């Protein structure tokens, strides 16, 4: 089959690889009908996330049709079912899964001992996202083996297009969880750093949840345009001071809720801390560039909440914890507990409250995927979200 394969820094190719097979009774094989490049895939492309190996198949946002089912998954799935596959692999049985904390499932990361060394404890297995999370082959491919498939799926009813439901696998529940973590009240101003795909979903989630005011911060005109379409006031951080403008929009009090949908590769320029991060990262003395975290901690209203869906990988420097402590900020973060939200979100799509397909700007065949990684990374051609068709 054809699949997008990681070979090194900025080197992803469309290769021919062996077809996946059922390896465990709880497995299923999915014929992928649509998959997407996620912003967090760029951390792999740029090789900021450790733990990739030459030959790994990438991709963790995909959906398709079940073509083979292991014996233990037959009660939950059958050949022909149309499913979205969450990027977090879940067993549904461990203590964390029972609590709905699916992204820290205790059993699905087959390299849990590596994750435990890095993070103290294991986290869930993920598709196509380093050997730290299990080294499972990803979904930017014609076929995928889905481990723990009896639990790791969202069945899709007829009548909805791939484009409407594909993002239930990652960015929509990720943006939603980011907003839910804010526990939004009707009086709240929610500021969202990053108007990429997750930021766009967070904007719409905050609107759905009834925020008084949503503010999006980015510098790419097309992304700001799409953010405004979603109901956000926008701040171009290249052209105005984020902190001054946020204070101006909140009568000097700062936003109650702040969402970081940027993560480890913040592109702030012209600030001292951004240059500091660049130097430290280049000299391997820091893994991430946490400019957004610093800015959020500084501008957030006292007793407010910092919600962090953006991916961070390791050790961060110069975090103003004095501001966080003295202002009594609440920090909520984590990979997305996808299955915790998908039934509710699927209903909202069916009811027409939201149609996540708005974010798609490019749809291309799978073999054009490697080129689209570059287009997406460089934000060329107004690229915000790429869907690949195997």
């Amino acid at each position, binding site marked *: 089959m054809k699949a997008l394969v990681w070979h090194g820094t900025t080197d992803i190719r469309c290769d021919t690889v062996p077809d996946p097979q059922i390896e465990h009774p709880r497995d299923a094989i999915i014929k992928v009908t649509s998959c997407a490049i996620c912003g967090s895939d760029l951390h792999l492309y740029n090789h900021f996330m450790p733990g990739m190996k030459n030959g790994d198949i990438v991709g963790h946002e995909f959906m398709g049709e079940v073509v083979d089912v292991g014996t233990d998954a037959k009660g939950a799935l059958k050949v022909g079912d149309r499913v979205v596959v969450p990027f977090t692999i879940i067993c549904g049985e461990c203590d964390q899964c029972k609590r709905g904390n699916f992204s820290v499932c205790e059993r699905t990361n087959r390299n849990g001992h590596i994750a435990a060394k890095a993070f103290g404890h294991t986290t869930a297995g993920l598709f196509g996202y380093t050997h730290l999370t299990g080294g499972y082959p990803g979904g930017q491919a014609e076929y995928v083996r889905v481990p723990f498939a009896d639990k790791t799926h969202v069945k899709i009813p007829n009548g909805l297009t791939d484009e409407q439901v594909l993002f239930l696998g990652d960015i929509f529940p990720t943006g939603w969880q980011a907003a839910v973590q804010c526990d939004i009240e009707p009086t709240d101003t929610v500021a969202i750093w990053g108007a990429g795909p997750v930021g766009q979903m967070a904007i719409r989630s905050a609107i759905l949840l009834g925020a008084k005011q949503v503010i999006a911060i980015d510098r790419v005109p097309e992304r700001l345009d799409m953010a405004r379409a979603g109901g956000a006031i926008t701040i171009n951080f290249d052209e105005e001071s984020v902190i001054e403008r946020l204070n101006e929009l909140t009568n000097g009090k700062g936003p109650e809720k702040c969402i970081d949908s940027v993560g480890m590769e913040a*592109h702030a320029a012209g600030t001292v801390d951004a240059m500091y991060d660049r130097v430290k990262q280049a000299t391997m003395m820091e893994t991430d560039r946490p400019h957004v975290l610093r800015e959020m901690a500084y501008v957030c209203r006292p007793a407010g909440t910092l919600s962090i869906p953006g991916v961070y990988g390791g050790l961060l420097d110069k975090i103003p914890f004095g501001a966080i402590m003295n202002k009594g900020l609440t920090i909520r973060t984590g990979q997305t507990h996808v299955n915790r939200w998908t039934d509710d979100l699927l209903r909202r799509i069916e009811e027409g409250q939201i149609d996540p397909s708005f974010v798609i700007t490019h749809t291309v065949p799978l073999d054009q995927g490697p080129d689209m990684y570059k287009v997406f990374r460089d934000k060329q051609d107004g690229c915000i979200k790429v869907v690949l068709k195997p």
Partner: protein
Amino acid sequence: MRYETERTRRRGHADTATDTLARGLGIFSIALGIAEVVAPRALARALGMKGQEGLIAGYGVREIATGIGILASKDPTPWIWGRVAGDGLDLATLATALEGRNPKKGNVGIAMAAVAGVTALDVYCAQTLSRESPTPLPPMQDYSDRTGYPGGIQQSHGAAKDFEVPRDFRTPEAMRPYAQPQASQRPTPSM
């Protein structure tokens, strides 16, 4: 990497941060050039390079010309590369003043370190600018109709009020009165 803003799009440039750095280098170039032209004798004395006042003043003219080129041109890239070449010349000239009898060797070392630092900035700026496309950016895509709300934003705003935030995702109860400053719930500060 090319980023676009409303301002840079009009100018056909992409990365304002690098543009800003280039402008800064241009201003620095002119300032240094003026100092070299106005006070070559003082500089020569400080560096133990007596007799080379004319050369220093000449370098000052070069700095001023380069600075003007950076600030006045539509594309500062070749001028920044010009600065890199000039930095090499400055370092080579300063190196000649490191000979053993010069009592101002310490000052020369400091000057060389400063020039090396500026050279690093010049190289970074020149490389970044060189990676950018010299042609104007394509027209912006119009996403103003990409609302994501099939029934319109008015209908969707607050549509998920029926969603019950799970207990483990709620704002801690103790913080709630502070986070939601409604008059009736606002606690009286204890002094």
